[in-house]
């Protein structure tokens, strides 16, 4: 080092960078080998140069970059950093450092490196282009505008540069500038075309023309629609409308153009034109309900929002809409959407008997029953928000059943058409789902069985019954029924997934996995050319579970994670399951990171292909991807695991168990101890052998892989999974991990905050000693649902905590905020009185409201023992929670009963009393040991019905 420094003295860095001719050409070769992915050759060249010039910065960097591609990460970073140290003023070194960060998806650092590189080499197109991609990926929009401006200045002849510059302005909401850029560009091309008469005008643009007019036509069309959209977003509606109309000949996406026009007509109050347009769109596709809404708005009527059940709409508005639909139906007799939406327009309260509502449902249901559409109930489920609706639907379908049984028709009068025999099955199937929805499990099962007795070959009947049994609290029967359905059609992927889910719910993880692999790529017939060979290669079919992961099968991973977490939560559960659960939940989170990452390639692709509108839609989608319900589910699961790991750290648990073991052994008689130790040793040996076998497998893989690269990880998938899961178990700081997850959730759920997130944030904050965050969580939770039992309990806990002296010594501002919020909530009352008022206000809403209300009340006056027992006994256990209203509103379900049971356990004999009550109401419940559940235990298959009576008869 010292000698080379002496040699280098007196040289400028530029001199040192300059290599002699031979090495220069070698260096160029490294770059070429890198670009053509011949990394090993590149590495050799680099080493040749370094032999003579060991401190040549750019070569060191390139060597690092090449090593990175050979999976030698650590060395890669070493060399790249060393190279940079040797030649800080080389843009190549900075660029390479940026590339390295980029390959690890560390875009933030990569951007910094690129900016440094650009400082040294202002006009390097490659670096500018790379930088612009990173900036848009990271949504550094202002940086993106700047970079695109430089690119355009350097290469104004390239169309992409103009487009990208325009899009950049659009993204920072500078709509006028965006439009100006487009206009300027179009002027230049128009001029070129005129001047050259079509000969070599704008380079690329012309190539498109020669290669295929279609592409250019598409680009012209897309440009018009994109401009119109920018105008629309910039509030220049009239201009946008004129543009679309004027350029109608150029537009290929006529439908998209019409939809845009419709939006803009409505927004600018040109209702007459809007009406005409939407009527046209409805004629094109009557099933698209967005067109219906457009039409209604153009008529000055409010839009029907799905789910809100139109309950807020005044009667006359609804009547007008119904009349409109009547007219439309005459025109489009086959349209389903009209008929379905008319139901939403008739309220059961409109006339005394709800006749209009019933006849609307009747008109909708009949054709579906005749066709035998299994999803009929699914499409009417929204109506069940109102109890009265459910009653009317029940009456209608019960009427169908008795009329079919009596006369084989769906009703008297002119509609007395004779029905095919299967219609009765679909009516019964509907009724089964109906009774299940309103919590009448006995009736639901009765209808299921009647339907199965009628036509035992309808597969859906078994999945419906499985669902009923799930709600009845017997998950193993549910899984059995689902599996029966699956066996009736082994080629049906949906049924296979259904069974996997039900097996996981029943806690049968191994069985679920062995079914889950059946429909993976490796195991589907036709996907493998040589089945025999495959079988030999893969001794373990479960290896294919990897495929489910690669396919980002999120529902499966979520169910699997939850199954593991349930195992961990059992009193006799295995705490290692927390690691497994966490591992699966983190897979889900990782999928979302991957999906976010996936947009990277589209930044250059979409701009080049000019699919601008879809590109912007995609950016919007990616901006909200972490708000997806499945991300929340995965994150909540992971948070629960982290909290568990914090509350009961496995490392300490191991210690404790070892200690207990020692004590136990110490108490044993000598010969007993000897036997015990021998057994332990044997177990240990078996374990080691298993681990060694797994290791061998990895060794095989290592031998196969060619030198230079790191050996590929070839441990069996499940072994690897198990190891990763165990590592997670010993997560060093679970609360820190939880914190970053919570931050992301809070950020992305801003527009649509979720109670669950707030409750978990509260638990996290209480454990981390962050009172202000706990306060914030409670506040948000109560804002989402003021009566939420969880939020209420959190508030009471927070008040007690703040009174426990933890406010002393904290920041005065924090203490001030805390006390003022608490004062405001209590409104001058004592905490006891506040808790009392909650019970009075919300205590009758559901068993959980009552239970948590009483618990909070008990906490507030620090009740214990029999006093607490009395409170819970009168308020919860003695309550009348099994009324029709509670069951139908789903405030009483088997799941909520279990939750209550869990919280009552340990309070005197309340747990047992509660279990007795629940067993009476849920006779199939295996949790509460209901009477019918016990019978099923002896003969599980009897739930499938039908066959069992004949089981013993056999001839031939």
């Amino acid at each position, binding site marked *: 080092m010292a000698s080379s420094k002496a040699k280098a003295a007196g040289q400028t860095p530029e001199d040192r960078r300059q290599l002699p001719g031979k090495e220069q050409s070698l260096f160029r070769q490294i770059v070429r080998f890198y670009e053509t992915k011949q990394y090993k050759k590149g590495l050799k060249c680099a080493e040749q140069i370094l032999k003579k010039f060991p401190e040549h910065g750019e070569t060191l960097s390139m060597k690092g970059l090449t090593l990175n591609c050979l999976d030698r990460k650590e060395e890669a970073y070493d060399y790249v950093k060393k190279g940079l140290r040797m030649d800080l003023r080389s843009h190549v070194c900075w660029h390479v450092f940026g590339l390295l960060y980029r390959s690890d998806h560390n875009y933030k650092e990569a951007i910094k490196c690129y900016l440094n590189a650009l400082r040294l080499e202002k006009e390097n197109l490659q670096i500018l282009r790379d930088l612009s991609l990173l900036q848009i990926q990271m949504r550094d929009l202002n940086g993106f505008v700047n970079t695109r401006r430089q690119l355009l200045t350097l290469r104004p002849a390239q169309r992409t540069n103009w487009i990208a510059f325009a899009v950049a302005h659009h993204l920072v909401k500078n709509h006028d500038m965006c439009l100006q850029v487009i206009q300027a560009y179009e002027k230049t091309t128009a001029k070129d075309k005129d001047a050259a008469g079509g000969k070599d005008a704008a380079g690329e643009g012309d190539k498109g023309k020669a290669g295929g007019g279609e592409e250019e036509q598409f680009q012209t069309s897309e440009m018009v629609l994109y401009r119109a959209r920018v105008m629309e977003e910039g509030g220049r509606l009239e201009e946008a409308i004129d543009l679309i109309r004027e350029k109608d000949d150029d537009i290929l996406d006529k439908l998209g153009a019409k939809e845009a026009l419709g939006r803009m007509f409505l927004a600018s109050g040109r209702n007459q034109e809007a009406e005409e347009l939407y009527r046209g769109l409805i004629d094109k596709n009557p099933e698209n309900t967005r067109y219906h809404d457009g039409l209604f708005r153009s008529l000055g009527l409010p839009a029907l929002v799905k789910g809100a059940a139109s309950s807020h709409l005044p009667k006359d508005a609804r009547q007008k809409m119904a009349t409109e639909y009547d007219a439309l139906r005459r025109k489009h007799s086959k349209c389903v959407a009209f008929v379905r939406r008319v139901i939403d327009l008739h309220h059961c309260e409109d006339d005394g008997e709800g006749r209009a509502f019933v006849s609307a449902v009747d008109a909708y249901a009949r054709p579906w029953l005749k066709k035998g559409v299994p999803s009929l109930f699914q499409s009417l489920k929204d109506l069940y928000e109102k109890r009265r609706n459910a009653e009317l639907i029940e009456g209608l379908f019960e009427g169908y059943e008795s009329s079919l049984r009596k006369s084989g028709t769906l009703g008297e009068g002119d509609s007395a058409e004779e029905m095919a*025999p*299967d219609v009765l099955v679909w009516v019964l199937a509907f009724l089964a789902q109906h009774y299940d929805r309103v919590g009448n499990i006995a009736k639901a099962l009765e209808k299921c069985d009647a339907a199965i007795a009628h036509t035992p*070959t309808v*597969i859906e009947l078994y999945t419906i019954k499985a669902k009923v049994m799930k709600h009845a609290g017997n998950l193993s029967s549910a899984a059995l029924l689902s599996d029966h359905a699956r*066996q*009736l059609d*082994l080629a049906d992927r949906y049924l296979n997934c259904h069974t996997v889910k039900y097996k996981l719910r029943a806690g049968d993880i191994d069985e679920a996995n062995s079914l889950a692999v059946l429909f993976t790529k490796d195991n589907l017939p036709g996907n493998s050319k040589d089945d025999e060979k495959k079988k030999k290669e893969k001794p373990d079919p479960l290896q294919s579970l990897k495929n489910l992961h690669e396919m980002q099968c999120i529902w499966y991973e979520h169910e699997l994670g939850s199954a593991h977490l349930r195992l961990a939560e059992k009193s006799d559960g295995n705490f290692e399951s927390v690691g497994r659960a966490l591992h699966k939940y983190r897979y889900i989170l990782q999928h979302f990171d991957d999906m976010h990452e996936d947009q990277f390639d589209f930044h250059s692709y979409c701009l080049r292909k000019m699919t601008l509108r879809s590109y912007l839609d995609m950016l919007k989608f990616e901006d909200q991807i972490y708000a997806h319900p499945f991300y929340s589910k995965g994150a909540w699961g992971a948070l629960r695991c982290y909290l568990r790991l914090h509350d009961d750290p496995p490392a300490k648990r191991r210690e404790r168990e070892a200690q207990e073991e020692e004590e136990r052994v110490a108490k044993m008689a000598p010969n007993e101890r000897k036997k015990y130790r021998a057994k332990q040793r044997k177990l240990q040996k078996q374990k080691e052998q298993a681990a060694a076998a797994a290791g061998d497998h990895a060794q095989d893989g290592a031998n196969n892989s060619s030198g230079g690269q790191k050996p590929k990880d070839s441990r069996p998938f499940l072994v690897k999974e198990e190891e990763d899961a165990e590592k997670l178990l010993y997560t060093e700081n679970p609360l820190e991990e939880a914190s970053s997850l919570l931050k992301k959730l809070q950020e992305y759920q801003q527009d649509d905050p979720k109670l669950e997130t707030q409750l978990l944030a509260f638990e996290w904050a209480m454990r981390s000693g962050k009172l202000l965050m706990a306060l914030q969580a409670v506040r948000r939770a109560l804002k989402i649902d003021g009566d939420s039992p969880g939020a209420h309990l959190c508030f009471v806990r927070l008040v007690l905590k703040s009174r426990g002296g933890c406010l002393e010594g904290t920041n005065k501002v924090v203490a001030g905020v805390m006390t003022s919020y608490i004062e405001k909530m209590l409104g001058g009352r004592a905490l006891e009185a506040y808790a009392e008022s909650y019970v009075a206000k919300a205590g009758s809403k559901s068993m959980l409201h009552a239970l948590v209300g009483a618990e909070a009340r008990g906490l507030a006056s620090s009740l214990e023992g029999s006093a607490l027992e009395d409170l819970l006994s009168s308020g919860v256990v003695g309550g009348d929670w099994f009324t029709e209203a509670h069951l139908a509103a789903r405030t009483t379900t088997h799941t909520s009963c279990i939750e209550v049971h869990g919280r009552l356990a340990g309070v005197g004999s309340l747990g047992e009393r509660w279990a007795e009550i629940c067993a009476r109401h849920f006779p199939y419940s295996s949790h509460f040991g209901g009477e019918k559940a016990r019978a099923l235990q002896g003969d599980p298959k009897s739930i499938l019905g*039908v066959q069992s009576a*004949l089981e013993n008869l056999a*001839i031939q």
Partner: protein
Amino acid sequence: MKIRVVLDSVRDQNLKQMKQLNAAIFPVKYQDKFYSDCVACGDVTQLAYYNDILIGAIACRLESKGNGKAKLYIMTLGVLAPYRDLGVGTHLLEHSLRVAMEDPNIEEAYLHVQTSNDGAIRFYDKHGFAIKEMIPNYYKRIDPPDCYILHRSLV
């Protein structure tokens, strides 16, 4: 009233449906051999679907007569109770007989029927079958235990 029936062959994937159907129709539980014969004998065994629901099936087996000739044995033909008298059985039987007649080596068809099953005897009579003989004590656990052999020539 007639209903539109679609036929399908038996495969491993839908075999269980046929088992479910037979369990509901016949007071007999068939052994696995019966079903593997069904899958092996091809198009003479058929499932009848209405609205995607399996409502009936015919199961036949080809038996060698030794001289390169064969006969068609109808093992079962059944339709779920609610779907009877709608022409499904005829549809199934005609299909199997047509398939058999396309093969000149298949010369006759026959089956066993419980002597008390007047409906079935009438049904087969309509399709050209006649009683050939009676076998006493053919069935073990149902009453009456006797059966007829019904027979029809296919040439």
